[in-house]
């Protein structure tokens, strides 16, 4: 299958030719397929945010290319603009970008910029609001009267309403309570299923990425340090710790159990852990 997004030998240098020159991306290459849920992890300053802004054409690569659906997004001005809509980007703390009088109008900002017919905009706004669980009543209220978690959902709906094929989110759950986090992660997963969209999510919660994603990109020192399933990545616990990252708590426990001589596999989620422990118990009972 043709990959939806291809990144080839991407390099990016900030403030070229000044004393503040700094290379944020070094030779990054990877492919992304439709429907994948990808987690991006990395230490602060490892180039995650820069990478995200390359993918929808907000930043122009110093060298290398970003190929969306077979076409280089920088080969034509129209394609660059299209990339903004086809690759939706939700920044950190997106609620700080709300500006309209009503939630409805704010969500309609993106689709409005796409110059869609009015009925289509209306359909998309309602559908996006539904994805993130906003009620009809809330659509007509001011975004500034909502709670922090609700504002965040409005902001995410504002990007979902553009119906991007690739949805990129930078720490969508930062600063929310556990219930709010679970809800937003559920909304994102629902959007992926409904539209067969690709999700790329930056997160510092190893538990979240272990539970949700089927692939992890690990950024370290401006390079793509690892690329693989959560299983493959978390198996290299030592290397992750060296890069200032961690592994899920439950994986730590199981690594320790193994060191103590128990015959357990590596696990990454609570569900897997339950299964592994049941098997262990059952196994020993039979023996």
């Amino acid at each position: 299958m043709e990959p939806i997004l291809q990144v080839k030998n991407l390099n990016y240098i900030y403030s070229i030719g000044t004393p503040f020159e700094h290379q944020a991306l070094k030779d990054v290459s990877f492919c992304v397929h439709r429907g994948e849920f990808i987690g991006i992890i990395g230490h602060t300053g490892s180039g995650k945010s820069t990478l995200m802004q390359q993918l929808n054409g907000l930043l122009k690569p110093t060298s290398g290319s970003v190929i969306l659906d077979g076409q280089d997004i920088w080969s034509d001005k129209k394609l660059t603009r299209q990339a903004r809509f086809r690759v939706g980007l939700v920044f950190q703390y997106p609620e700080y970008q709300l500006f309209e009088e009503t939630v409805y109008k704010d969500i309609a900002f993106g689709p409005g910029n796409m110059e869609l017919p009015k009925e289509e905009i209306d359909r998309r706004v309602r559908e996006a609001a539904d994805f993130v669980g906003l009620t009809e009543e809330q659509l007509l209220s001011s975004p500034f009267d909502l709670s922090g978690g609700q504002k965040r959902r409005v902001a995410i709906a504002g990007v979902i309403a553009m119906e991007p094929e690739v949805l990129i989110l930078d720490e969508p759950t930062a600063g929310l309570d556990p219930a709010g986090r679970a809800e937003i992660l559920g909304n994102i997963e629902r959007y992926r299923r409904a539209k067969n969209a690709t999700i790329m999510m930056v997160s510092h919660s190893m538990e979240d990425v272990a539970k949700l994603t089927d692939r992890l990109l690990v950024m370290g020192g401006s390079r793509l340090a690892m690329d693989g399933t959560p299983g493959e990545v978390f198996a290299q616990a030592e290397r992750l710790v060296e890069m200032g990252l961690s592994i899920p708590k439950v994986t730590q426990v199981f690594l320790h159990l193994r060191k103590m001589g128990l015959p357990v596999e590596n696990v990454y989620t609570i569900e897997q852990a339950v299964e592994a422990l049941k098997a262990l118990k059952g196994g020993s009972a039979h023996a």
Partner: protein
Amino acid sequence: MLKDITLGQYFPGHSPIHRLDPRTKLIGLTGYIVALFVAKSWISYAVMLLFLVTLIRVSSIPPKSIVKGMKPLVMILVFTGVLNLFFTGGETVLLRIWKLTITKEGLTRAIFMMGRILMLITGTFLMTFTTSPISLTDGLESLMGPLKKLHMPVHELSMMMCIALRFIPTLIEETDKIMSAQKARGADFETGSLIKRAKALVPILVPLFISAFRRADELATAMECRCYQGGEGRTKMKLLRYTRRDFGAFAVIAALVAVIGVLASFGL
């Protein structure tokens, strides 16, 4: 793009000028400006220019940055030049175009006025480039100290200035972030008619104002939590102290003012 603004920006460094007490620099600048306004002849202007160029060399500020900071002021310069060039009366007429005449006096005056403005701005830049905003407000507060006796809220004023300066880079960064976020939703700031472009600013300005108010609120709470209550009885971690270097600087400035004064009294 927004980061190119250099007006009032501080260039960290260790030159002798950087290490002067901020009060010395403020008083020195005042002396320099007095000298600049007393100067009336080619000779005294040359002395001033020599002094300024030496200071720039000593401060190791790249001249490029000074020129860059000058850009927004080009209009004022041109305006001053043109006004003085055409509207100064004089006897020696150099050129006559329709009703406008250019006299020798007008030409000299235009050059002097533009030179004065240029040197005034460059001198001020030199101070803001070599003094961090914090130490500048510290210096101002200390110099205005005597006004406290007249119940002027000196400390409060300098605190406000300090906070305002502190938040400029933060707000610039914030603007950049909001712009990126709205661009990601397809906002377009570069094309379209003037009205369309002005309208396109709304999605930036509203969040920016809200964030500025939020930050102000948070800062006020944080200050109250640390029992901030103004200047009364407040001590400082970094006390300003004049050193030998400062007295040297005072001597240099005094000499400059004296030389220019003497020259002026001889009609030069």
